């Protein structure tokens, strides 16, 4: 018997197992705090993505102040952090998760992936705390996700600044838009959530967000796996035009409302990118730090969250992490047009974290069906 035949036999043998494998049990309502998963040492292990704010100086300063060493365990993005937390739930690899945002946090809470911390949140802005007020996660930066458009691509006649999302399904935008996929990108996911709210509150009661996504796909919208690919490779209005492989075939993409400010800051107060601030088409994203359920170095991890919220670190978020601070009276810096080119949304989408967690799987399936 040759190998392909063996493989077919193996497949036939494994198939009946599908009925025998016991379905996994869903989490109970209350979460229990797991015992530490490794031997205690002086190192805080942080599960995060490649956050720009974590410069070597910043980490060295933390070590100097507290005596704890830091070891970073990386994931690709916020979704990757959640998935790694889920996959390693029985044997957590880190003490602290940094980078889960408010589209992922509720899922992490439902899966009992985090445990409470006692970090003081007195200095944090009220509007940030409105989104989540529990003790399982502490906000450390924020930003509004919205559509960015290349002003050079708007001629004022045929193609003008869109006044509704439906306009983007018209021929003048055919093949000129790119979106990071909500399946694999957190900005993409946040914008999809915003569209759900947008179309629930528009005048047309017969169509939903997914009708719009279907129309966008039919109008030549491109979908990428991540924000970087969409913004850097396809978007014609950003710094991507200076990178190898730039296509510049899209006039509109999803990024932050302050991205034009960042563009200006790094290009001597000059940019041809701007934001679209239609009501409910933007999403207020907040990123959180949380102690992992089963963490070992809890004291060190708590100290790191406190350090992250300190004035010296958090007020510098706009420059060091290209996100806004969560502290009271936080602003973007005025230098090089950062603040001037940053737009403020008229009204962000309003969808609770609970609803996001409960309906996300369904939305993603609908999105996939609509766009393929």
């Amino acid at each position: 018997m040759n190998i392909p035949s063996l493989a077919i036999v193996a497949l036939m043998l494994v198939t009946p197992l599908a009925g025998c494998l016991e379905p996994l049990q869903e989490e109970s309502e209350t979460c229990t705090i797991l015992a530490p998963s490794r031997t205690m040492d002086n190192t805080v292990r942080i599960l995060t993505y490649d956050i720009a704010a974590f410069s070597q100086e910043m980490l060295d300063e933390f070590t100097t102040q507290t005596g704890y060493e830091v070891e970073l365990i990386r994931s690709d993005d916020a979704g990757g952090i959640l998935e790694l937390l889920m996959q390693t739930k029985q044997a957590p690899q880190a003490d602290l998760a940094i980078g889960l945002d408010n589209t992922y946090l509720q899922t992490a809470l439902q899966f009992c992936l985090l445990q409470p911390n006692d970090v003081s949140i007195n200095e944090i802005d009220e509007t940030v705390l409105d989104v989540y007020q529990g003790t399982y996660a502490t906000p450390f930066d924020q930003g509004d996700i919205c559509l960015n458009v290349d002003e050079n691509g708007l001629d004022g006649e045929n193609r003008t600044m869109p006044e509704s999302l439906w306009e983007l399904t018209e021929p003048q935008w055919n093949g000129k838009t790119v979106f990071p996929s909500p399946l694999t990108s957190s900005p993409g996911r946040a914008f999809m959530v915003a569209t759900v709210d947008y179309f629930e509150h528009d005048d047309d009661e017969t169509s939903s967000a997914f009708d719009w996504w279907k129309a966008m796909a039919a109008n030549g919208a491109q979908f990428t796996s991540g924000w970087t690919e969409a913004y850097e490779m396809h978007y014609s209005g950003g710094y991507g035009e200076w990178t190898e492989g730039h296509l510049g075939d899209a006039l509109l993409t999803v990024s932050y409302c302050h991205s034009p400010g960042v563009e200006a800051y790094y290009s001597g107060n000059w940019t041809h990118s701007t934001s679209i601030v239609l009501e409910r088409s933007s999403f207020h994203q907040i990123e959180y730090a949380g102690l992992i359920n089963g963490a070992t170095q809890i004291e060190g991890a708590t100290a790191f969250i406190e350090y992250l919220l300190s004035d010296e670190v958090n007020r510098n978020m706009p420059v060091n992490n290209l996100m806004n601070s969560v502290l009271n009276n936080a602003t973007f810096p005025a230098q090089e047009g950062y603040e001037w080119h940053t737009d403020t949304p008229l009204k962000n989408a309003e969808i609770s974290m609970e609803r996001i967690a409960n309906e996300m799987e369904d939305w993603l399936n609908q999105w996939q069906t609509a766009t393929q």
Partner: protein
Amino acid sequence: MASSSSQVNVHPIQWGVIVVVVSAGIIPLLLGVLRLMQVTQASPIDAILHAFDTPLATEALQFTLLEAALSTLLTLLIGIPLAWSLGRYEWRGIRGMRAFLFVPFVTPPIVAAAGFLALYSSGGLLPFMGLDLRTETGVIQWFSELSGWAHPGHMLALVLAHAWFNLSLVVRFLEPTLAQMNPHWEEQLLLLPGGQSWWLRVRHLWWPVLGPSLLVAATYTFFFSFTSFALVKWLVPGANTVESLLGELGGSAGIAFYRTEASLLVLGLALIQGAFMLIILTGASKFENQHTKMLALHDEQANRKLRGNAPRIQRWYVFAIITITSLPFLSVLIASFRKRAMLEDGTQGWTWTLDGWRQVYQGDASTITLLEALGNSLTFALLTLLIALPTGYALASAFHRLERQGKRKLANSLDIMCMVPLSASAVMIGLGIVVGLLQWFPSMFQFQYLPVLPHVMLILPFTVRIFRPAFTRLDPMYEEQIELLNLPLFRAWWHGKGAFLVGPFAIATSLCLAFSLGEFGATYLMVRVGSWDSLSIMVDQLLSRPKFDPLVMPTAMAAATTLMVVTFTALLVCEFVRKSTGGTDDV
């Protein structure tokens, strides 16, 4: 050849090695499949049918088959004349040329992608020559409009990159056969009725002699193009191979009550890909057996001397290919010294700087220093070598013994079972390790040398491929005579076998080192803690950063340049060892 079966019995240790290797390949996969079945409550057949019913999956499969077929075709079209010229004539520095042509094969795809992007992008060599594969203007746009094909430029860009990658496979398999073929066969055939026309000579001589080598090279080229990931991601925006789609969806797979649809699609796609891979590898194994029989026909040096130097047009062709091969490397090297900057006249432009090298040398919070990454890469490579070389030798020896016992089918079947990790998606292996082994050995992820495990598993099939033909060519008479001398164990092995295997050992060593140095996918799955980063991981980390910081690109390219230089040096050293010990070039 007439050895009794008792003399060639497979040693219990060799059986142990076979069991361990096959288990290490199959168990994580099985655990991954069972986990996905448990999460989705679907059978593999349901999952496969579901995948065929999902446009996302079927489009990826169609694209994968098309790009792999086109890549194979182009690689052969470029590679056959190259191997012909290199194999039949005298060349000064042929070992260096071979080593150089081999470097693309072990270059991390992400480095290659960066190099090709620089070539294809505005200001790069190809647009300068009027071929805009990236933004598809000019002749590409004309062809696109004429044919209705949406992005022919992107496909051509990918196929060219795949040909660059796999060219060395054609050279490695075809050139030794051409070099060692008895030249009198050609002369004799010209006198016979069966050799009177070009087509008849192909039918009666070239195809029977070169066909198996060609098929092996074509099969492996198809295989590596089929599993392409990073090049597709960077060169063909908007398209997915099955492997890249699995990579996108894989993170969500295997988690209970979370993205069940993704788990179902991953299960279906991984099984479809596995089936394709098994068929391809089985084919490769069969062709390879035929290829092995064609080797060692005539003295290579005498053949080359007989024909002398290559005709001018062939010399130009070889040098042109070598020059083209070097272009992506040169692009990477140049990019390591070039930084985006605001010029004095207020416009954006480029300046020449060593800042990228400084930055990579110093490291930062997210990336370790260049020397640390280099140290990790070399450590992984040496450990891989220490494990894979004796294991590959033991496996090949066991399969050879089985063959001598007349159990060729069993030997081939076990050989293919050792290739299972190659046939599986990295996502499935990663999932199997995470959901399976991690439950039993949580501390495993704290083990610094964990990446060595997948490196060994992925390189083993190739070391076996190198040693098996070498064992076949060994005359058992030597071994039998040495046994009569009653020498100590090691000396008996050396005089009976070892001394004849220095060449294959050198090739296997170079392959182990180069492969491990450049390996990315499996390392990425295993390395979670930044301080264990290898050079290839470091390059990816740096390239993935948003490039508003003008230092990102030169820093990444400085790391990539270091990786290229180290890999090329390792290959050259092994070639030197092989040359100094008189090794042959058969693989």
